[in-house]
C-alpha cells in the first residue's frame, strides 16, 4: 500500500531549488487526440469504423485493415497487468531525477496491449484500471492503477506527478467576494491543502463571506485587488514564492448586451477584472510559479481559471460578460503556451449560470458553489486542463463541438415584436 505523503520539512535555504525538467513532449499528430481526451479526463482510443478494432498506440490507419476512418471513442479502461519492471535510471533527465519508476504491460479488455506507467499498489497478474493523464509536458500518458481504491493511493509519486493534487500544497484563491470562495476553501482544506490564501479586495467594506472565511483554520485572508497592479505585485512579493496552486475566481458580471447598456462602463469593469485581472496575476505570480514546478512535495502545480461557459459562444442576455470571458479564455490559451515549458498546468473550469443575484431571472438549473468546488477539486486531482461544471456548461460544450455555427444561431434567436 502507498505510504501517506508526509508534510515536507522546511527548505534548506542554502540549497538550490530543483530546476524544472520535463518528459519528452514530441508526439505524432494522431496521438494528440489522446492528449485531448486526457485534458478532460477521458480514456479514449481509436476505433476502426471498418473492422471495429480498438487500436493503440494511435496511428493514421487501422493496423488490421488499413482503413483510415478511425474514430476516438471512450472505451473501457479495464485490463490485466501482465508484466512489470522498475526503471532504475534513464537517459531522460526527468525520469533520471525521479527513478525508480515502474513500467509494465497491460492487456486491455477492449483488445490492445499497452506499455504504461504502473502505480505502486498494482501487483502482477492483477486486474487494473488504466488512466489517461497529462504529464508535465502536457501530453497524454497512461498509468495503470489498482481497481480497489486505497487510502493514500493519490500519494503514489508516479500518480502524483500526473496530477495537481492539493494535498500539502499552498493555494491562493483570488477573490474573497465570490460566492464560491468559502466552498472552494473548505474543499481544498478537506483535500489536505496546507494553507489557503484568500485575496480580499476593498477591505474597507463588508462582504458576506468574511465571517465564513475567518472561521476556517489555515485560511489566510490577504489584501488583493486584481484591478490594481500595485496590489497584485505586493501580494506576489509576499506569497508568490509559496503559491503552489492559484485559483482565479475574480469575476465582474452584469447582465446585458451592447444595446441594453448605454455605455462602456460595466464592460470596462468586466475587462479589468476578468481579462486584465488574469493578466496582472499571471505577470506577478506566473514566473515564480513556473520556477517552482519541481520544488518537491509542495511544488507549484496548477493555475486555475474559472470561466463562463459562454466564453465559447456568446449569450446576448449576458453579451458583454460573455465577450470578456471569450477574451479571458483566449488569454488562458496563450498562458498555456507560455507556461508549457515549465510544466505548470493551466486548468480552465467552464461554468454555466451560477446561483447568484445576477442570474436570478434565469430558470434552473444553476451551478451552486459546492459544484464549482467539486469540479475544481476533481480537476486538480485528475490533472485536467478543461473541466465542465454543470449541465449547461456540458451542453454548450457538446453543441459547440458538434457545430459552432449552429450553436451561435441557436444562441442568437430574435423575438417577434408587436
Amino acid at each position, binding site marked *: 500500500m502507498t505510504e501517506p505523503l508526509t508534510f515536507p520539512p522546511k527548505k534548506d535555504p542554502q540549497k538550490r531549488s530543483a530546476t524544472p525538467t520535463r518528459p519528452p513532449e514530441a508526439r505524432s499528430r494522431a496521438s494528440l487526440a489522446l492528449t485531448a481526451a486526457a485534458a478532460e479526463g477521458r480514456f479514449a482510443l481509436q476505433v476502426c469504423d471498418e473492422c471495429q478494432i480498438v487500436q493503440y498506440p494511435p496511428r493514421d490507419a487501422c493496423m488490421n485493415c488499413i482503413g483510415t476512418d478511425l474514430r476516438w471513442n471512450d472505451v473501457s479502461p479495464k485490463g490485466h497487468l501482465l508484466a512489470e519492471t522498475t526503471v532504475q535510471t534513464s537517459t531522460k533527465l526527468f525520469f533520471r531525477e525521479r527513478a525508480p519508476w515502474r513500467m509494465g504491460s497491460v492487456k486491455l479488455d477492449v483488445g490492445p496491449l499497452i506499455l504504461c506507467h504502473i502505480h505502486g499498489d498494482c501487483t502482477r497478474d492483477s486486474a487494473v484500471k488504466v488512466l489517461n493523464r497529462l504529464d508535465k509536458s502536457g501530453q497524454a500518458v497512461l498509468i495503470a492503477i489498482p481497481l480497489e481504491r486505497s487510502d493514500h493511493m493519490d500519494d503514489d509519486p508516479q500518480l502524483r506527478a500526473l496530477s495537481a493534487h492539493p494535498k500539502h500544497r499552498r493555494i491562493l484563491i483570488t477573490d474573497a467576494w465570490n460566492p464560491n470562495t468559502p466552498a472552494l476553501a473548505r474543499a481544498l482544506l478537506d483535500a489536505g491543502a496546507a494553507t489557503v490564501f484568500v485575496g480580499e479586495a476593498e477591505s*474597507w467594506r463588508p462582504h458576506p463571506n468574511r465571517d465564513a472565511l475567518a472561521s476556517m483554520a489555515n485560511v489566510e485572508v490577504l489584501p488583493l*485587488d486584481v484591478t490594481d497592479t500595485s496590489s497584485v505585485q505586493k501580494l506576489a512579493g509576499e506569497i508568490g514564492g509559496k503559491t503552489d496552486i492559484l485559483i482565479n475566481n475574480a469575476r465582474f458580471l452584469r447582465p446585458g448586451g451592447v444595446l441594453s447598456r448605454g455605455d462602456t462602463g460595466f464592460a470596462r469593469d468586466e475587462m479589468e477584472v476578468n481579462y486584465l485581472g488574469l493578466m496582472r496575476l499571471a505577470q506577478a505570480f506566473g514566473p515564480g510559479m513556473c520556477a517552482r514546478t519541481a520544488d518537491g512535495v509542495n511544488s507549484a502545480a496548477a493555475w486555475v481559471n474559472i470561466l463562463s461557459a459562454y466564453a465559447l459562444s456568446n449569450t446576448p442576455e449576458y453579451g458583454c460578460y460573455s465577450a470578456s470571458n471569450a477574451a479571458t479564455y483566449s488569454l488562458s490559451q496563450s498562458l498555456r503556451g507560455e507556461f508549457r515549458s515549465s510544466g505548470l498546468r493551466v486548468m480552465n473550469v467552464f461554468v454555466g449560470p451560477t446561483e447568484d443575484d445576477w442570474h436570478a431571472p434565469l430558470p434552473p438549473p444553476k451551478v451552486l458553489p459546492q459544484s464549482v468546488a467539486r469540479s475544481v477539486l476533481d480537476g486538480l486531482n485528475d490533472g485536467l486542463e478543461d473541466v465542465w461544471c454543470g449541465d449547461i456548461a456540458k451542453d454548450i460544450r457538446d453543441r459547440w463541438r458538434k457545430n459552432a455555427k449552429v450553436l451561435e444561431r441557436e444562441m442568437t434567436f430574435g423575438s417577434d415584436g408587436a
Partner: protein
Amino acid sequence: MSTLHSLATDIALGNVKIIDLTHTLDPDFPVIILPPEFGQCARFRMEEISAYDHRGPAWKWHNLTLSEHTGTHFDAPSHWISGRDVPNGSVDEIPLDAFVGPVVVIDCSEGAAQNDDLELTVEAIENWEAEHGKIPTGTWVLMRTDWSKRSGAAYLNMRKDGPHSPGPNPEAIQFLINERNIRGFGTETVGTDAGQGAHYVPPYPAHYFLHGAGKYGLQCLANLDQLPPTGAILLAAPLKIKNGTGSPLRVLAMIEG
C-alpha cells in the same frame, strides 16, 4: 509693501501657515458605494508606463484612472439634477474667484464621536454663531467630524442598511444657503451628505440644495482639526475638465499663526 509681497513674506516667515486638507490618492481609499446595478465611481488606479527601463530608459511615468469624484474632490453644481441648469455649473466654467475664499469650520467632532449618524442642525449652527459670529456671505463652511482620522471599514462605516456617517439635515443646509448665502459646504466624509442621507426628504439634501442654488461641495477633506473656526482662507481649484461635474484636487488652507 504690496499685499501679495507681504503675504509671501508672511508665508516665508511662518506667520501664515499652509495646511493641506487633502488625502493622498491611494488605490485603497474608499469611494461612495451605490447599489451594484447603478454605474459606479472608478477607484483610483495607477499603471506604470515606464520606470527607467526598456519601456522608456530615462524616465518614469504613470497612467491614471479615476472618477471626477474619487478621493478628496470638488462637486460642481452640474453634479446634481437640481443644478443641471445652473449657469457656469461645470468645473471648467466656474468663475475663478470661487476657488479662493474665506472658510469657517463648525466643530462637530465631539458629537460625531458619540453618534455615527450625527446631524448638523440649524440649532448647532446658531450655537456656533453665538460664539464665533454670524457666518459671512460667500464663505466656505466645513463640518469638522474628525472622520478623516478613521480608516478602512470604519470610514465608510457600511452596514446592512447602508453607510453611517455624519452630515447636515435638510433644514441646516437650507439655512446655510438661504439665510447665510454660503459659497459651498465641505465634509471629511465620502460625501457632503450624511451616510443615511438617502432617507431624508429630499434624498441627499446637501447635494440637492447646494447644487440647485449654484453652490459647491468639497468632500473627503482631512486635517480640519488644524483650522481655526474663523479667519482661514481656502484654496480649492478643481481641474479644468470640459463639462466636468467635479474633480479631485489639492485643497489648501492658509491660516495665520
